[in-house]
């Protein structure tokens, strides 16, 4: 289901509504329903906002991703997510910002099942890898913490990361703020690393 909201002058919205309807039907939509009242409009959006919570009824836990693909790659990525679900034996729902290509695949699982949890992480990496391969990103809204830190190497070269690290060090050279987050340990230029990265290397005897 595509939920499309139009905003603007009444005259413009009326024209766009007709155009949107025509495009949807041309693309083989089964039906195009239009909210007739403000209450109906609010209800549609309430449905969207409650979608994540509703999945709690299907499965005890879910894992959400935040990958992004160029807009024209949405059909391909949805097909790929379907295949990933089959490959790992997982149910994956998709509720996301289609106009931006910003995905939120919801991977359903049971936290008590450790083996399944590993599958979830593998499925998630698989999806993000697809996003990278088609020119997208590993995060559209929520940023990079520790979990995706090492995938930064697939978006940026060591030299590009090195530039970001030197900027970080200009403000936060001792890594007091959010240590070990966002930027992976570089494989080069040890002298400009932050304190915690040097500490990690020391721990590992490097």
């Amino acid at each position, binding site marked *: 289901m595509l939920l499309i909201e139009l905003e603007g002058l009444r005259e413009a919205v009326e024209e766009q509504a007709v155009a949107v309807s025509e495009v949807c039907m041309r693309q083989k939509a089964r039906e195009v329903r239009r909210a007739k009242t403000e209450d109906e409009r609010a209800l549609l959006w309430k449905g969207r906002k409650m979608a994540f919570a509703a999945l709690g009824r299907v499965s005890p836990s879910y894992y959400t991703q935040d990958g*992004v693909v*160029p807009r*024209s790659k949405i059909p391909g990525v949805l097909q790929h997510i379907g295949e990933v679900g089959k490959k790992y034996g997982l149910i994956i729902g998709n509720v996301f910002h289609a106009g931006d290509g910003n995905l939120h695949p919801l991977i359903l699982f049971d936290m008590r099942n450790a083996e399944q949890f590993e599958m979830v992480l593998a499925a998630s990496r698989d999806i993000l890898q697809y996003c990278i391969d088609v020119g*997208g990103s590993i995060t559209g809204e929520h940023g990079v913490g520790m979990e*995706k830190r090492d995938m930064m190497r697939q978006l*940026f070269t060591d*030299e*590009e990361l090195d530039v970001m690290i030197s900027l970080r060090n200009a403000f936060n050279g001792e890594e007091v703020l959010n240590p070990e987050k966002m930027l992976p340990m570089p494989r080069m230029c040890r002298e400009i690393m932050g304190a915690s990265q040097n500490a990690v290397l020391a721990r590992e005897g490097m």
Partner: protein
Amino acid sequence: MSTTTTPVRFLRELREICGAGRVIDDPARLEQAQVLGVTPAVAVEPASTEEVAAVLSFANAQGLSVVPAGGFTQQQTGNTPQAIDVLLYTTRLTDVEHYDPGDLTIGIGAGWTIAQLSSKVGADGLLFAGDAPLPERATIGGLLATGMTGPLRHGYGGLRDYCIGIKFVTGDGRKGKGGGRVVKNVAGFDMMKLLIGSQGTLAIITGASFKLFPAPRQTSTFVAGFATAAEAIQYRNTVMRSPLSPMCLELVSPQAGALLPGGGRSGKVWSVYLRASGSDAVLARYRSELGTAIALEIDGHDEQEAWRAIEDFSHTLPERYPDSVLISLSLPLADVQPVLDDLESVAASNNLMSAAIGTVGVGRLLAGLWPAGEPANLSAAVSAFRDRLPRDASASVLHCPDKMRSQAAAWEKTPTHSDSMKAVKHALDAKDILNRGRFLF
């Protein structure tokens, strides 16, 4: 003025990097590439990010000063360069990294001109919203480095809103990148916002990705005239509180209007130019909402010509009045009218003429001052005007007479976080080879 000869002994190395025909040491050509009266010792035309990186690594190792250049439309800003050992043209960086009209994004080299980019995406019914002056000459790299904006800023936002990826080489020769080619992306630091407006002092931008917009199918421009700036600003407020969402909303002062085609479309008055897009029904709604204040409606060729003149104003004024000072201001919306009043009163009490034009719905204003005829103390007037600016204003001098240039830096608002800025400069260009001495430090 001064000509440096230092790097001539490095010609062989530069030729190895860029190719023999791409290193310019012909005095006549170098003379034509002066920046604020300073002749480069040598100029290079690298064809790729790799070549830019090799030139900067070499210059960094040798301590040579490097000035990046595109279409030479904004080189008149800033202080006089101490020396230009190497002028680095970005004009051969013209690759297309990605373009699928269905994505509404494009990634291109920094050497594309704005006009070339607009024409390419226009053929697919798309709009590039960067409308800086002199688009046939202005390059994408220069547009980003100077952070220039035009009237489309009102409806489409500034560069920071639609530049979604950037490639660059730091002063110490490292190849950097920020963002990518998708419209939402928060992986890594936002290098786009760091480099937009950094005036070529941190890195040389070699390419960028942009979000594009559907091009309007038809537009119309409504011109309203007012006796005073206060009335014109009141009209701005009325438009902004209405349901209308115009593409452009521009204020033109009487003296600025005199420099537009036809000497200003609404006579010796303050004009508000409003550009709207949409169907016949939408434009009819604009007519009814805007009411009797509209003195004129233009479309087609006349409309294009009017907006082009507004876009080019920052060049038209100094061409017409070489002794003028042109200041770019960014203001809180409520401060636009008081600043316009201050500009007029400073001009009146110093025997000067003044003109103002600006995207006043977002607080952008270009303010010009020039002698009315008799000798006038322009420098003192500009200082007085600057001192009256509100605390939250940002101001920079886009053009001033050469004899005043050494004082121009003092007119800039003092950066409140200069230590942080210096730390960033040191992180990316520790040897200070890029645009040395031209901006802030």
